[in-house]
């Protein structure tokens, strides 16, 4: 499951040798994220986000377990126990804000991780399974985040739960029974809150399990890289440790600084004020909006305003919203250009940029009230979203003429450094770039 030149684990200390015979866990770690895993030497900072997503999950689990120690999953006291955590538990405010903002930062790094994969073609053979498992993690994250948002039992919690479970109500015939079954009642109540708490506690560990599969599947072909050219020999790789542990250490520092700025100085910026009002089934908020990370999908849901013959617009919106994520599962087979990296695909690159802007527009519209002109804008943006993945991408991969690829990873690295060396040498008289072909 690795390259033949991968470094071998040889424990020197007798205790480690004893351990290796009984339970070779250090060996597993060494081969997974240690010196035993050779990684392309040319990864850029976009390759930091996988580790950062793992870090975000750890932060969520640690803060979440502590939150759970002080939380009462009962509709009569849930709101008050969260407030009590904020006020009377030592550093409870820190745990609560870290957990709430941690969810947002988890999504930020995961979205960047997904966009990295989309641009550099990481979903293509031989890494389809890595991509598919990643999407499973993303779906689990969405479910976990949605249920977590219900737990404080504020107004947006309650009405968000009502709207999202109401989506299932759009399914003909069985819709309403399904909604009732999900909620454990006809409207969100104590039964819903309890099951959401139970599942919200469970799913992060399921995510952790799928992450292990995700990394396992990744280690079979090894990591991709910005050129998309596969590893050809030992000169193309460096051991994960210390090279990428050092780089990820720096990345984690930057991540934690940005996270801390948000957590300590603007902890409520990403939340909605209405969630500081206790849930009230008799008073509907003026605008029900989910958390920001669901806005693009919420915009797609609301973009369908016209019935398609006997299919109601609401059902179309629900189908489209689920389709907008499910279509990503087919991506490895929709885009069959042999070139992975967007850097060598001039036409793809332009459309990819449009897609990024399109998703940002969808996100903006999803957070805005459901009125004009936002609905019309999200209709056009949602149309592009579907057209991009289902029509444009397959066509590009058929007709595009890619740029010439570098012969190997090492060649691309040396090329970059020699150009940089020449530029550096220009103003200085004594500098000698010393180009060389040696690995």
């Amino acid at each position: 499951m690795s390259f033949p030149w991968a470094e071998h684990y040889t424990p020197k200390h007798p205790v480690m040798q004893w351990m290796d015979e009984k339970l070779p866990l250090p060996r597993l770690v060494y081969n997974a994220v240690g010196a035993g895993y050779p990684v392309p030497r040319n990864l850029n900072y976009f390759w930091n986000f996988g580790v950062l997503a793992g870090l975000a999950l750890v932060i969520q689990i640690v803060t979440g377990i502590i939150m759970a120690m002080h939380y009462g999953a009962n509709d009569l006291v849930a709101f008050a126990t969260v407030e009590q955590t904020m006020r009377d538990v030592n550093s409870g405010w820190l745990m609560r804000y870290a957990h709430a903002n941690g969810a947002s930062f988890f999504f930020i790094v995961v979205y960047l991780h997904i966009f990295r994969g989309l641009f550099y073609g990481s979903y293509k053979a031989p890494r389809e399974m890595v991509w598919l498992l990643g999407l499973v993690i993303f779906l689990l994250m969405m479910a976990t985040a949605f249920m977590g948002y219900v737990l404080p039992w504020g107004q947006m919690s309650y009405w968000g739960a009502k709207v999202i479970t109401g989506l299932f109500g759009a399914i003909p015939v069985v819709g309403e029974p399904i909604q009732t079954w999900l909620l454990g009642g006809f409207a969100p109540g104590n039964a819903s809150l309890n099951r959401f708490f139970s599942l919200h506690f469970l799913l992060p560990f399921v995510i952790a399990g799928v992450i292990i599969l995700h990394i396992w599947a990744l280690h079979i072909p090894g990591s991709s890289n910005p050129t998309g050219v596969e590893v050809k020999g030992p000169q193309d790789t460096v051991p994960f440790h210390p090279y990428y542990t050092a780089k990820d250490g720096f990345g984690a520092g930057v991540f934690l600084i940005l996270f801390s700025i948000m957590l300590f100085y603007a902890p409520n910026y990403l939340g909605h004020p209405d969630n500081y009002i206790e849930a009230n089934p008799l008073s509907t908020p003026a605008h029900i909006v989910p958390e920001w990370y669901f806005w693009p999908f919420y915009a797609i849901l609301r973009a369908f305003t016209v019935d398609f013959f006997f299919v109601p617009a609401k059902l179309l919106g629900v189908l489209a919203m689920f389709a907008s994520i499910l279509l990503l599962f087919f991506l490895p087979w929709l885009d069959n250009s042999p070139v992975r990296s967007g850097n060598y695909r001039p036409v793809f690159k332009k459309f990819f940029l449009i897609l990024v802007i399109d998703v940002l527009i969808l996100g903006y519209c999803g957070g805005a009230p459901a009125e004009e002109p936002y609905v019309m804008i999200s209709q056009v943006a949602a149309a592009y979203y579907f057209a991009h993945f289902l029509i444009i991408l397959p066509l590009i991969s058929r007709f595009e003429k890619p740029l010439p690829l570098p012969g190997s990873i090492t060649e691309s690295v040396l090329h970059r450094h020699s150009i940089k060396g020449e530029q550096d040498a220009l103003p200085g008289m004594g500098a000698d770039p010393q180009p060389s072909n040696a690995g």
Partner: protein
Amino acid sequence: MVRIGAFFVGLFFAGWLLVSFLMGAVAYVAEPPQPTVEHEFHLAPKHVSFSFEGPFGTYDRRQLQRGFQVFKEVCSACHSLKFVAFRDLEALGYNEAEVKAIAKQWAIKTPDVDPATGEMSTRDPVPADHFPKPFANNVAAAAANNNAIPPDLSLMTKARHHGSAYVYSLITGYRNQQGYRNEDGKELLKEFPDARTPEGLHFNPYFANLNLAMAPPLTADGQVTYGDGTKPTVDQMAQDVAAFLTWTAEPKLENRRRAGLATIVFLLIATGLAYMAYQNIWADKKKAA
């Protein structure tokens, strides 16, 4: 096969979205949406500056005490403050004995059970108690307030956009609706004759739907007598109570900012070291061979 299927699915969704867009656009042009009275006349909160603004802002203890006095003498007659306990008042600069006295003398009593008979009774609050609610339940609250339930104020400044400025603006924002014009010079009752404030409500352009059940709570300068010599103008009292309610909503604000500063300084140093370690480890790989 996947690509052919995808093509038709994509064509369907994209096509129907564009049809929806065209129908929406035609409707938009044929019947442009009419502006609502809220859209035309609702005002964003006023600009007002507080000591706790900015990343290094802290609460002004004397202002919080003044704000607490306004809450005690004016707001607490109708509004509860259920997430705050008397003991929390020590953060405002009161000592233990003062807090005990404040609790004991509180006008509303804490519900309890008579230990001898088991009957419902009341007693003086103690510092460990949360502020007792002015009404026994929502039905009583609604019955006493023209069918509107006065909301709990513990979290009010976090439950509204720009909450501190909102509370200040709302309290000082009551206007006479007769002849009221917005910044564009449009007169409300001329533009929207049906939007006349109903009997029993009060016109306030800072309230989301412009008509508020609460009567103006601060009506005259000197309604409260401050012990620290500050002149109790309506504007001053409104600012003070807004500051107090910011504290009730976010009592740990100062701890949070202090902890944040220490954390970020630590992280900057750690990240700087991590960067140097990264450069050091990669030094031989970054050179051109």
